[in-house]
């Protein structure tokens, strides 16, 4: 009797595992399959790509790479450099200033503090496309197009990053620590830079990665603002290649450029995945 019970429990466990693993495998497949397909396509020639799709890699990878590298409409090194400048600067500045803002509204008491907090959160509800119209008009009116800092500066004001930082502070920073630092003789800026920032390191790491990736992949704003080849970022260059005239259109080249575009992001994720997971779950559980 007991043995039977054990047996049926074992079967139940087995079935539930099969179901769970089945779902997980399916979801992983959905996520990874298109990456695989992109790598396959990057190794095939335009003609092969036109002929239909396959799961077997072709032998044209190097040729695609050379073609992409020598395309006169784009310049991969410049694109990479531009993307890197924009993404890294906006990642650093966004997380630093969001942390600073969050610290300000968390630690200090001042008039309209709540109103300001709510106002910042309300901005989150406005899609960037809405405010973009005015921003683009402004940029054209004052001849501020084709300037990379026009992409960096506005990205510093990031309500969602601010919100994340604020939540993190509430969970991890006791006000007594700030007071202790004040009594120790530290001034307010030093307190933030020497005491608070190190405590916020995990949160800052996560937000830096997210905003780096977000900025790296951003197409909308750069496409509107940048048309000088010397200033274009990688996503804009991919679009340039895609919209090249019909006779020169080479799908293999486009796929190769895409692979190159996502490689840095993939490297970042692989290296930092542990701290990303730590950062995403931190704050939720108070240690």
């Amino acid at each position, binding site marked *: 009797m007991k043995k039977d019970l054990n047996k049926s429990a074992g079967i139940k466990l087995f079935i539930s595992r099969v179901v769970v693993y089945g779902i997980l495998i399916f979801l992983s497949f959905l996520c990874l399959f298109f990456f695989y397909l992109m790598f396959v396509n990057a190794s095939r020639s335009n003609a092969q790509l036109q002929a239909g799709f396959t799961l077997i890699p072709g032998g044209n990878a190097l040729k695609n790479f050379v073609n992409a590298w020598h395309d006169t409409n784009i310049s991969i090194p410049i694109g990479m450099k531009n993307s890197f400048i924009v993404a890294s600067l906006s990642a650093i500045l966004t997380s630093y200033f969001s942390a600073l803002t969050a610290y300000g509204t968390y630690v200090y*008491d001042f008039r309209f503090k709540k109103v300001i907090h709510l106002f910042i959160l309300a901005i989150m509800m406005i899609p960037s496309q809405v405010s973009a119209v005015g921003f683009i008009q402004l940029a054209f009116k004052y001849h501020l197009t084709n300037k990379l800092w026009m992409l960096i500066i506005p990205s510093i004001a990031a309500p969602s990053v601010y919100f994340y930082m604020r939540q993190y502070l509430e969970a991890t920073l*006791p006000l*007594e*620590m700030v007071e202790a630092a004040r*009594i120790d*003789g*530290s001034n307010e800026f030093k307190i933030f830079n020497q*005491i608070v920032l190190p*405590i916020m390191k995990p949160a800052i790491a996560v937000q830096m990665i997210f905003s780096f990736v977000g900025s790296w992949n951003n197409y909308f704003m750069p496409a509107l603002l940048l048309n000088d080849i010397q200033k274009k970022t990688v996503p804009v260059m991919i679009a340039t290649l895609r919209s090249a005239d019909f006779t020169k259109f080479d799908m293999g080249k486009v796929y190769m450029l895409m692979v190159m575009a996502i490689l840095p992001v993939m490297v970042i994720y692989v290296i930092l995945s542990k701290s990303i997971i730590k950062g995403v779950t931190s704050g939720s559980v108070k240690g």
Partner: protein
Amino acid sequence: MAEVALRNIKKIYTDNETNKHRKSLFRKREEAGEKRSYNLQVTDEGVVAVQEFNLDIKDKEFIVLVGPSGCGKSTTLRMIAGLEEITSGELYIDGKLVNNVEPKDRDIAMVFQSYALYPHMTVYDNMAYSLKIKKVPKDEIDRKVREAAEILDITQYLDRKPKALSGGQRQRVAIGRAIVRNPKVLLMDEPLSNLDAKLRNQMRSELIKLRKRINTTFVYVTHDQVEAMTLGDRIVVMKDGYIQQIGTPQEVFDHPANMFVSGFIGTPQMNYFDGRLTVRDGRYFVETKGYEVELAEDKQARLKEHNVEEQEVTLGIRPEHLFITNKGIKGNVDVSELMGSSLHLHMTVGDSDVIIIVPTEGAKIDYSGRELEIGFNGKVAHVFSKKDQHNLEY
């Protein structure tokens, strides 16, 4: 190493947004007739946390502020630290008015209840931080930190982060961080309340030792009367933002200024009886439930000095001063607790609860359920006014 003087200090939490909320909460409760947990005064300016606070702290004195939660003791400490603005009154440290001086320029150090150590720094760096900011030369920092670590017996942990330390060790680091600077005044805000009972006792005796080694002025906040009694040169008992009594532990224990102080200091709590103060031939007697004693000479003198008249009073007698007698106040023992060297008897006398401590003296008598008669003598009876609960002797 400094005198601290507080002159008519008052603290009102003014109308910023959070306090508006607090105030309306207080008012609503008041309107609903609900008894507030503590009687902070609500005025149009805000909530009054501390008022009429006058205290002269002598050089190298150990002062303990003690009182129930919400009595304003922490607020007072934070005002001395400069973390809280002083609404009115004057605060002097070493003869200098410091009302508007930043915490960092007051030459004070503070130990927080939650330790407030910097989690990303090692113990060494935690202790060295204030000296580094002051740009003290490196070798001197090193010498001072090691000296403080030596005193607190934490030398072996200097390279660890606070996370890797136990509560007691963290507490030592927090104290170490405060003493490396050689502050004029060392402020402590309930430093032992996060420790377990055993560790608390141990740290308490270490604080007494520490105090002998570092010559500075201490201001210590606690809600624990045992800490107050054992640590303080003088203790300041507070309630509802007012000072109730200032005195040495012995003075406060022997001559409580009012019923609140008498009840707050001493465990188990003082027992109270409704009674009457009578005068016959110029001598004072107290009587309760048919039991009458003549008050001791010193009490006679003090009552006479204040021209106290016959009146209904509340008698306060500490549990250890009640004894079992043949002709006394009748009561029933509900519970008998053996505490080792003594027995605590919880009794019902009339309609009030009374605790009495009797020595066990080897023979274990089971008192529970028995009817006993208890008495007291004229030396230990405290006479409190029915009207305003103050001690009639003062």
